[in-house]
């Protein structure tokens, strides 16, 4: 079992001298998975763009439908981006040992959880205002796209939380940490695109 002071470099070099230059299989697999996810969200955004362009009168959101909370979600967007920055700093600090990276990972998890919770609060408010999956095309696309992202965010936060404890013990494999980062960066960087297309 590795000691807590084990660094990424030393763990990688345990297996092969040039292993640090190789792309771990788990990271490549996660990249391929993210590519498929990008296509999934691109299809949703494409359908949303066409529906928005073909709405009668060119008014979006359609008449009688509530306006989305643009300002509150902008704050939420900034928080999610900050979460991505914290994870990036965590990965940099992990080069000198997991002890220095733990706090930043915890911060990334906390801001990620806060993002999901604020999204939930926003959904409750919108449901009370009458925006549902059945209320209009606007509502259907909103809950489909934002809900799909929220599902990814929940799963990603769960994975981040799952790797926190091995990191604390010093037993986290660097490839697992790297693969998790790829997924979280995807969730973080996808959100501004959704925000610009769906909310504005």
């Amino acid at each position, binding site marked *: 079992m590795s000691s807590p002071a084990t660094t990424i470099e030393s763990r990688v070099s345990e297996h092969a001298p040039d292993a640090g230059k190789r792309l771990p299989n788990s990271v490549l697999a996660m990249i391929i998975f993210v590519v498929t996810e990008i296509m999934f969200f*691109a299809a949703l955004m494409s359908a949303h763009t066409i529906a928005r362009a073909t709405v009668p009168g060119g008014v979006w959101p359609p008449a009688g439908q509530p306006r989305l909370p643009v300002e509150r979600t902008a704050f939420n967007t900034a928080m999610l981006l900050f979460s991505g920055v914290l994870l990036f700093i965590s990965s940099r600090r992990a080069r000198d040992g997991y002890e220095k990276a733990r706090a930043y990972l915890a911060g990334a998890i906390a801001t990620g959880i806060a993002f999901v919770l604020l999204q939930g609060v926003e959904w409750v408010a919108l449901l009370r205002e009458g925006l549902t999956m059945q209320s209009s095309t606007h509502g259907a696309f909103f809950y489909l796209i934002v809900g799909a992202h929220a599902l990814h965010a929940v799963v990603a936060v769960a994975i981040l939380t799952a790797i926190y404890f091995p990191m604390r013990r010093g037993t986290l494999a660097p490839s697992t940490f790297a693969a998790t980062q790829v997924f979280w960066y995807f969730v973080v960087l996808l959100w501004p695109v959704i925000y610009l297309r769906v909310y504005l």
Partner: protein
Amino acid sequence: MCRLNFVSRFLIAVGGTSLIPAAAWSCPACMVGDPKTAATYFGMTVVMSALPILLVCGIGYWLWRRHS
């Protein structure tokens, strides 16, 4: 009665289709009506066609640079 083979029937079908007026070639949803709608359809078609190619080529190039 004259029996046509598969190739003959295929050529007749393709030739017959080519005689149909140009309006019938276009998708009724994307090419009829508002020009803005047609532009949106065209734009999204370009995006959805180019995106997977760009992603795969981008990853391939990145891996090649990484290992070269």
